[in-house]
C-alpha cells in the first residue's frame, strides 16, 4: 500500500516533464479557453488543436493507455451529449428518419437487455463498444412492432447539423480532458502545487498558506492510509469483522475505526504544527524554495505556440 499513487503522475523525464510547472498550468488554462472560443462547427481549428495535442502527447512519451484511461470516465457523458445533439438539433438537411413502433413486448425486451448489460458490466471486456452496438441494434429493433398493439408511434428525424455539432462537441470535450491529463500525468503533485502558488502570488500573500495546506494534505494521505490499515488490523484482532454484521454492529465497527483515526490525525497535526514552528515557519511570510522553477527556452516555445494558435482563432472570430 506504500506505493499508493496520487494524482496520476507518470514518470518518463520527457521534454514536457521537464518544463516549468507554471508553463504547464498556464498553457493548459489558455488551451482550454482557446477550445471554447473556436467558432462553432469549425473543424479546421479543432483539427489544429487536436494536432497540437497529438504532438504534445508524443512528446510526453507517456503510454497512450494512460490517456485513454482518463477518457474512460467521460465516455458516457460524451455519448449522452452526442445523442442529445442528434435528437434535438434540426439544422441542415434531413439525414434519415427512424420510425418507432413501441409495443409492450419490444420495449420490454429492450429493458431486459439493458438491465442484463448493466448487471454484467464489470465482467465484459470492452464493455463500451458492446454497449454502443446494443444501442444501435436497439434503436433499429424498436422500429418493428414485434407483438401486440402499438402503444406509441413516432418519428425520430436525424439532421446533418445534429451529427456535425455532436461530433464537434465530442471532440472539444475529448481534447479538453486530454489536455488536463497531460498536465496531471507529467507534473508531480508537489510541482503542481508550487506552480499554482507561484501563479497565485500576485493575488495576495495568503495564497501561499493555501498552497501549503494543499501540499500537506497530499503528503499525509498515504500516511493516514497506513495508519488506518493498522487500526483496522488492531480492531480485527479484537474480533471486529468489517465484512459482516447488522447495521447496528456496522456503526459500532466504524466508530471503532473513526475515533482512533481522528485522535491520530489531530495528534499528527499538532506535532506537525510544532515541528514547522520549530523550524521557523510563519504563515504567509516569504519563503525560499529548495527547487527553483526555471523558465527556459522550451517553456517559451510551448507557451508562444499556444498563444499563436489562440490569436489566430481570435483574429478569425473578430474578422
Amino acid at each position, binding site marked *: 500500500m506504500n506505493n499508493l499513487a496520487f494524482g496520476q503522475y507518470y514518470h518518463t523525464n520527457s521534454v514536457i516533464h521537464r518544463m516549468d510547472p507554471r508553463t504547464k498550468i498556464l498553457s493548459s488554462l489558455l488551451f482550454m479557453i482557446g477550445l471554447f472560443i473556436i467558432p462553432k462547427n469549425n473543424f479546421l481549428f479543432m483539427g489544429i488543436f487536436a494536432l497540437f495535442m497529438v504532438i504534445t502527447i508524443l512528446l510526453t512519451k507517456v503510454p497512450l493507455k494512460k490517456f485513454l484511461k482518463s477518457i474512460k470516465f467521460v465516455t458516457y457523458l460524451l455519448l449522452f451529449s452526442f445523442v442529445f445533439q442528434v435528437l434535438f438539433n434540426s439544422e441542415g438537411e434531413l439525414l434519415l428518419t427512424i420510425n418507432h413502433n413501441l409495443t409492450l413486448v419490444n420495449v420490454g425486451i429492450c429493458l431486459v437487455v439493458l438491465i442484463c448489460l448493466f448487471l454484467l458490466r464489470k465482467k465484459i471486456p470492452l464493455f463500451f463498444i458492446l454497449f454502443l452496438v446494443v444501442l444501435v441494434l436497439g434503436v433499429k429493433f424498436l422500429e418493428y412492432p414485434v407483438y401486440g398493439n402499438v402503444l406509441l408511434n413516432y418519428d425520430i428525424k436525424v439532421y446533418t447539423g445534429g451529427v456535425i455539432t455532436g461530433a464537434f462537441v465530442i471532440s472539444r470535450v475529448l481534447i479538453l480532458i486530454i489536455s488536463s491529463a497531460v498536465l496531471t500525468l507529467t507534473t508531480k503533485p508537489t510541482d503542481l502545487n508550487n506552480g499554482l502558488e507561484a501563479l497565485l502570488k500576485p493575488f495576495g500573500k495568503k495564497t501561499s498558506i493555501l498552497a501549503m495546506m494543499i501540499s500537506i494534505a497530499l503528503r499525509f494521505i498515504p500516511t493516514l492510509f497506513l495508519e488506518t490499515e*493498522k*487500526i483496522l*488490523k*488492531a*480492531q*480485527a*484482532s*479484537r*474480533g*471486529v*469483522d468489517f465484512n459482516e454484521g447488522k447495521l447496528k454492529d456496522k456503526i459500532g465497527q466504524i*466508530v*471503532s475505526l*473513526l*475515533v*482512533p483515526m481522528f*485522535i*491520530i490525525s489531530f495528534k499528527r497535526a499538532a506535532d506537525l504544527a510544532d515541528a514547522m514552528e520549530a523550524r521557523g515557519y510563519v504563515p504567509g511570510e516569504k519563503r525560499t524554495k529548495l527547487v527553483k522553477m526555471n523558465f527556459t527556452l522550451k517553456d517559451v516555445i510551448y507557451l508562444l505556440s499556444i498563444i499563436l494558435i489562440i490569436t489566430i482563432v481570435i483574429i478569425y472570430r473578430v474578422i
Partner: protein
Amino acid sequence: MGINFYDVDFTYDVKASKTLKNINLKINKENEFITILGHTGSGKSTLVQLMNALNLPNKGVVEVAGIKILPNNKEMLKPVRRHVGLVFQFPEYQLFEETVLKDVMFGPKNFDKNNADVELSAKQALKMVSLDESLYERSPFNLSGGQMRRVAIAGILASNPDILVLDEPTVGLDPKGKTDLMEMLVEIQKETNKSVIIITHDMNVVAKYSKRCIVLDDGKIVYDGGKREMFENSELLKNHNLDLPDISKVANSLKNKGLITFEALPLTKDELFNVITRGDENE
C-alpha cells in the same frame, strides 16, 4: 494444539520479494515464553500477524488450535483471533470507547454475542493488568501512556485468548513502566499457563524473561532455541545484528580485566552476583 507453521511463505506485494520464506515453527499452547528477535524489516511483525490470521499465507499452512489457515481462505478467521490475542505496537491508539471498562468489553462482546459474563471477564482482565478500580469509569483518553497501554492489553486479555502475542510492548515506556509491564506479563503467564510471545529489541528483556528465542533475518528463521545458547554463540549474534544483555557485557569486561572467571556467561543480575560472590569465597 497451539500454533504450527508448515512451509509458510508470505509476501505483501506479489511483485516484490517475499517477506517471509519457508517458515516452519511449532509453538505450544501452554508454558511458552518466547521472544522474537531480529532487526527492523526482518519480518517479525508479519510473522505474528500470520499467527492471528490478519495476514494469510501465500503458500503453506498455518494451523492455529486445529484450525487450518490456507492461502485465500477467509473463513473461520474469527475463532483463530479468539485463540491468539495480538497486541499491536502502540496499542493505546486502538482505544475508542467512552470508558475504560467499555473499551475492554469491546473485544469479548465481538467474540461472544451473549454478553452475560462480558463485564466480569473485562474486570478480571483489568485486574490482571493491575489497573486501579477508580479508573474503570474514566475516559481512556485521560490516562497516562503506561495506563493506556495496560487498558489496551486488558482489551485483548478480556477475550481470554489461549496464546498472547505482543509486538514490542515496552516501546516508549519509562524504565519503571517497562519493568512493571514485563513483570505483569510474567505474572499472567505463571497464573494462567498461557503461552506468551513477545517481539522485542531489548536484550535485557530477553535475558531476564525469555524461555525460548526465535531469531528472524531477512524473512527466515535463523535460530530457534534457548537464550543461553544464543547469547553464547557470538557468531550468531554478530551475523544477525544482535547484542549481549548489559549484565553479560559487564561480566565479559570484568573477565577480560581478570577480575572474575566463569564457565557459563551470566545473563542476569543474580547470576553475575553469584559469580562475583563465589569469586570472593575462592580467594
